[in-house]
């Protein structure tokens, strides 16, 4: 449903993205990871049609973004900017959520229903002023406005940056819920623990090139890729790497605990 073929992009003379090809199916949860300046935000803007490729093509549900109006794409794609303050522009929470809904729908009753649904899902009061909310709450409001129109695809550029742990989990659980209902999710994220916990697939960018694309756990095992992209693997993966053979494929605290208990029982059995 999302297909990139040999996409190149440059803002000015310098090439920002080079020869990127991949496709993402409906219902996938993919993370885009890479160092600052690798081209992650640029790739997101190509995916939602804000930018058009310099060469190659980007297709969303069979529509070539180069020949499709952004308003048509906007029905299908919800886009969360890296900083929510770029997105929020109304005086009350309700107006903010209505803004997107009213652009896409006409039926008053339908709109009112959706508004109620989203307000209660996020626990917002309709009349609150967005600018009195904390950064974490504004991030949730920006997400709520996107989810209100129930897009098929959610593109999230660093949705948890600047949030504390609780706020981060709140956002991610909502995103997971949407994904379970069939929404395709593409998320840029610097927190590898979050990537490990939520994304099934990882695309690694380095210097504007796609250097790896695969199942999350298998990408976290590619040491050369992680190094090239200046990524620090999740702690349990680093620990497993240091412990060496017998600890392959251990990524979570639960898995690590289980394996250690097993091994310590074996040791005791041998001693007895």
């Amino acid at each position, binding site marked *: 449903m999302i297909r990139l073929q040999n996409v190149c992009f440059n803002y000015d003379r310098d090439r920002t993205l080079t020869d990127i090809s991949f496709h993402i199916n409906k219902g996938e949860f993919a993370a885009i990871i890479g160092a600052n300046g690798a081209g992650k935000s640029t790739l997101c803007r190509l995916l939602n049609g804000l930018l058009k490729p310099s060469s190659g093509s980007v297709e969303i549900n069979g529509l070539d973004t180069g020949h499709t109006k952004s308003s048509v794409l906007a029905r299908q794609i919800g886009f969360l900017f890296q900083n929510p303050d770029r997105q929020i522009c109304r005086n009350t929470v309700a107006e903010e959520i209505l803004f997107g809904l009213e652009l896409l729908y006409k039926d008053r009753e339908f709109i009112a229903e959706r508004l109620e649904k989203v307000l209660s899902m996020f626990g917002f009061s309709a009349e609150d002023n967005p600018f009195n909310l904390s950064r974490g709450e504004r991030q949730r409001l920006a997400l709520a406005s996107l989810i209100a129109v129930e897009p098929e695809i959610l593109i999230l550029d660093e949705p948890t940056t600047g949030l*504390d742990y609780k706020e981060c989990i709140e956002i991610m659980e909502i995103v997971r819920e949407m994904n379970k209902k069939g929404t395709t999710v593409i998320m840029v994220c*610097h927190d*590898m623990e979050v990537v490990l916990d939520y994304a099934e697939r990882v695309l690694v960018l380095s210097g504007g090139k796609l250097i790896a694309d695969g199942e999350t756990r298998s990408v976290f095992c590619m040491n050369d890729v992680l190094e090239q992209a200046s990524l620090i693997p999740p*702690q349990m993966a680093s*620990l497993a790497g*240091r412990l060496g053979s017998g600890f392959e494929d251990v990524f979570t*605290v639960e898995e*690590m605990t289980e394996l250690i208990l097993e*091994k310590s029982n074996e*040791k005791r059995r041998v001693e007895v």
Partner: protein
Amino acid sequence: MIKISNLTFRYKDGRKNALDNINLSINKGDFLGITGTSGAGKTSLTYAINGVIPHHYNGDYYGSVRIEGEDTFDTSPSALSLKIGSVFQDIDTQLVSSVVEDEILYGLENFSVPAVEIEQRISSALEAVGISSLRYRSIESLSGGQKQKVALAAILALRPKILLLDEPTSELDPESSVQFYRILRELNENHGITIIVVEQKIMLLSEFAKNILVMDTGKIVINGSVREVIDRSSLLEEIGINCPRVTSLSNRLKEEGVYTGSVCINVEEAEKMVRSIIDD
């Protein structure tokens, strides 16, 4: 060197106290990490230390903050900034110039640094932060992370005794965040600069800080060495602070009765722990 006594502050429009009876001493040469959920009062505490509170915010102010014996209430923020260099949370409001070099020059001229010293101060500050190549770049063209480094360089050029930073790596990727903290450690260990840094990522603090202070609803909840603080992981989790996963692992193994040593704060310690359990 910094002594805060019975400090309480409520912003003019605040519904509750942003700082609630804070008592705290920070010694010369410390590397103190301040953490807590959002709204805990971390930024307000930094404001109280550099004089932004009470000089730029109205509100109810009780208690005192003394920097080397001088009460911040009676000292102007600009006099305080000779001792304390601050890197604020919102980086775009901190940077005033359009070119990197000018940003550093601006501070030096404001502090009447002699002209003969200026070139050396600019180049060494840029070098210390690793951004010599950005010297003539326009600030507008920089990424958030690069801007955070420019702000740090501009502050370092003034040679403060105390560096106060509010979430300085929020825009940086993990590898660059670690590099940023290595710079702070260098300044702390080799130049004797006292570091006070607000940070959400407790993994960075457990690796680089000497002491950690945990805030919640305007109060200090825990204040101690990195190990003392991480040791209280169940309290931290209750407040909503995420412990490093190696810490959770050592807690789980304690619960299971296979480990009795102290809590792990980094991967090296976790490796030792696991080997002690499974090796002969």
